[in-house]
C-alpha cells in the first residue's frame, strides 16, 4: 500500500495504480500537489497560472467516475501544460507581454486529447517568451529556477514544465521542442523528456514559433510514463495541416520487450571539442549499460551536424518573423496606448509587446528573407538542412537509434549566457539536428556532473518513438538516475 506522503514522488503509472487500489483519491493527489506548487515550489517560478479551483472540481468529478467503476487511461491524473498550449478560458501568455491578457476561446488539440483521457490540469507553466530561449530567462514573468540549485537555469524553453516535474510539483507536464526545448531542460533538471516525430502530435492550438520545427511532447519521471502520456496526446488531427495520418502504436505495450540486438549509433562528432569531459563519461557509461542489456553500439558519422545550429537560426528565425506578424494589437493581445496613425499603432504595439530576444529573432528572420539576402541565407539554409537530414537517413541504414549527450554540460548559472546569443544557441548543438530532420528525440537522466544531472539523448527514425521509449525504459530498469530528487524538494 502506498501512502499519501509518497504521492509527490510517484510516477503517473504508480498514481494510477494507487487510485485503483483506493490508497488515495484524485482529490487527495491534487490537493497535495497544489499545496506544493503554492508553497515549497513557489520560489522556482515554474508556473504562470495555477488553476486550483478548476483542478479541484475536475478531481472530484474524476473520483466520482472512479467510484462508479469508469476507466480512462489518465483518469484523475494531474498534469501541467506549457503556457503555449491554448486552454479555453484560461490565460495563455506564451510568457510574453504581447499575450499577457490573452484568454483563448478554445483548447489546443493536445489539451483536448489529454482532457478526454481523464487528465486534470493543475496550471500553466513558465517558459521562454514565445519559446525563444534555452535558459527560461526571456520570460516576461521572470526566470524559472533549477530545483537542483536555485542560482542555475533549468534550461529552456520549456523550463517551467521541466522544473515542475523535477521538483515534484506535478508528475508530468507538456512541453514543446523547436530546437531542443523539451530535451535540454529535461537533461538539466534530471527528468525524462520526449519530442516525437514532426507531425505526430497536433500543433493545433500550439502558439506557433517555427512551424516546420515545432513539435509538442512530454516531461515525465520515467520512460514508461512518457509512453502512457504520449500515447494519449498523439494522433492525427484534421485541424493541423502537417499532422500525419499514421496510427498511434501502443507505446506501453511491449515496452518490456528485450533490446537485445538493437543497433545504437554513437555519433563521433558529438565527442569533439565542446563536450564537458565528465558529461562524456556519463554518456559512455550509459551506453555500456545498454550494451550489457544486449544492444550493439556502432560508431557513426553525421558529417554536417555542426552546421545544424547556424542552419536552425536561419530557418527558425525566418519562420518566426512570419508567424509573429500576426501580433498587431487589433484582435487580441497587447495594444500600445499612444499613436497617431495605424503604422505607428503597429510599430509601438510590437515594439513594446515583444521582449529583446523575440525582437532579435524577428529581425534576423526579416533579414534572411529580405530582398537580396533570401538566396544567400534562407535558401542556402534549407539546402544545408537537406544535407543534415540526408546524413541522418544514411546513419539509419546502419542503426536503429542514435545516442549521445543531450547538452554539452550540466546546468549553467542564470545570467551566464544572456550577453552572448551565440553561446546560448550552442547549448542546443546536440538537439537541433532532430528538429531539422523531423526525427523523434528523447532525453533520459544518465548521471551527475558536479552534483547536477546530465542527460543521454536518443534519436530515432521517423515514427520510431516506440523504440526510444523501450530503450529508455530498459535503461531505467537498470539505473536509478531518474529516481533522484533534489534534496530541497524531497
Amino acid at each position, binding site marked *: 500500500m502506498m501512502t499519501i506522503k509518497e504521492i509527490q514522488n510517484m510516477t503517473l503509472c504508480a498514481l494510477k495504480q494507487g487510485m485503483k487500489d483506493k490508497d488515495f483519491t484524485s482529490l487527495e493527489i491534487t490537493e497535495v500537489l497544489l499545496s506544493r506548487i503554492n508553497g515549497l515550489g513557489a520560489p522556482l517560478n515554474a508556473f504562470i497560472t495555477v488553476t486550483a479551483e478548476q483542478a479541484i472540481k475536475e478531481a472530484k468529478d474524476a473520483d466520482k467516475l472512479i467510484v462508479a467503476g469508469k476507466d480512462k487511461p489518465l483518469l484523475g491524473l494531474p498534469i501541467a501544460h506549457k503556457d503555449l498550449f491554448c486552454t479555453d478560458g484560461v490565460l495563455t501568455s506564451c510568457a510574453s507581454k504581447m499575450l499577457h491578457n490573452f*484568454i483563448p*476561446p478554445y483548447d489546443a488539440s493536445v489539451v483536448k486529447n489529454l482532457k478526454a483521457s481523464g487528465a486534470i490540469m493543475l496550471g500553466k507553466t513558465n517558459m521562454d517568451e514565445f519559446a525563444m530561449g534555452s535558459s527560461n530567462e526571456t520570460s516576461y514573468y521572470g526566470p524559472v529556477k533549477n530545483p537542483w540549485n536555485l542560482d542555475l537555469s533549468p534550461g529552456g524553453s520549456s523550463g517551467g514544465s521541466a522544473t515542475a516535474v523535477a521538483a515534484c510539483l506535478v508528475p508530468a507536464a507538456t512541453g514543446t521542442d523547436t530546437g531542443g526545448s523539451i530535451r535540454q531542460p529535461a537533461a538539466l533538471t534530471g527528468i525524462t523528456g520526449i519530442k516525437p*516525430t*514532426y*507531425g505526430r502530435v497536433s500543433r493545433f492550438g500550439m502558439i506557433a514559433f517555427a512551424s*516546420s520545427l515545432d513539435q509538442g511532447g512530454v516531461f515525465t519521471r520515467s520512460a514508461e510514463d512518457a509512453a502512457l502520456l504520449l500515447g494519449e496526446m498523439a494522433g492525427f488531427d484534421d485541424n493541423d*495541416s*502537417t499532422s*500525419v495520418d499514421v496510427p498511434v502504436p501502443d507505446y506501453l505495450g511491449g515496452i518490456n520487450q528485450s533490446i537485445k540486438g538493437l543497433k545504437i549509433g554513437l555519433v563521433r562528432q558529438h565527442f569533439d571539442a565542446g563536450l564537458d569531459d565528465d558529461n562524456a563519461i556519463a554518456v559512455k557509461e550509459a551506453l555500456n549499460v545498454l550494451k550489457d542489456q544486449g544492444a550493439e553500439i556502432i560508431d557513426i558519422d553525421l558529417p554536417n551536424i555542426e*552546421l545544424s*545550429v*547556424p*542552419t536552425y*537560426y*536561419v530557418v527558425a528565425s525566418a519562420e518566426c518573423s512570419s508567424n509573429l*506578424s500576426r501580433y*498587431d*494589437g*487589433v*484582435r487580441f*493581445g497587447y*495594444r500600445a496606448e499612444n499613436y*497617431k*496613425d*495605424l*503604422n505607428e*499603432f503597429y*510599430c*509601438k504595439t*510590437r*515594439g513594446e509587446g*515583444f521582449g*529583446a530576444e523575440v*525582437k*532579435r529573432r*524577428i*529581425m*534576423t528572420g*526579416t*533579414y*534572411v528573407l*529580405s530582398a537580396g539576402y533570401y538566396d*544567400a541565407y534562407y*535558401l*542556402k*539554409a*534549407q*539546402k*544545408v*538542412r*537537406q*544535407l543534415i537530414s540526408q546524413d541522418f537517413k544514411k546513419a539509419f541504414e546502419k542503426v536503429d537509434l542514435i545516442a549521445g549527450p543531450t547538452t554539452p554540460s550540466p546546468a549553467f548559472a542564470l545570467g551566464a549566457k544572456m550577453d*552572448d*546569443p*551565440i553561446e546560448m*544557441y550552442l547549448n542546443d548543438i546536440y538537439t537541433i539536428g532532430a528538429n*531539422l530532420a*523531423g*526525427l523523434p528525440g528523447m532525453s533520459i537522466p544518465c548521471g551527475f556532473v558536479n552534483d547536477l544531472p546530465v542527460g543521454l539523448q536518443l534519436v530515432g527514425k*521517423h515514427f520510431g518513438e516506440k523504440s526510444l521509449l523501450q530503450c529508455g525504459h530498459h535503461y531505467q530498469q537498470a539505473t536509478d538516475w531518474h529516481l533522484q530528487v533534489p534534496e530541497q524538494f524531497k
Partner: protein
Amino acid sequence: MSLNKEQIKYLAILSRMDIQDSETKDVVDKLSRIVEFVDQLQAVSTEGTEPMAHPLEQGQRLRIDKVTEDNQREKIQLNANETNNGMYLVPKVID
C-alpha cells in the same frame, strides 16, 4: 558580415517594430554576431542539393471547403481591445 545602424532601422521598419534608441546599440551588436555566425553556411557546398521543404517530404493536405465551426464571434472578440458592432476598431486609415 556585420550590420550597421541604418540596416537595423530598415529591418525595424520591415518588421513594424519600434526599436528605441536605447536598444539600438545592443541590437546592432547582437544581430551582427548572429549574422556573422550564420555566414559560415556560405562556405558549404550545396550544389545539386534541393532545398528541404518538409521534414517528412509530405505535400499539402487539402480538404473540402465547408464550414466546420459555429460562429463564436462574441467569445473571440472578448480578447480585442476595441470592437464596435462585431467589428474590430483600428486608427483611421482613410481621410
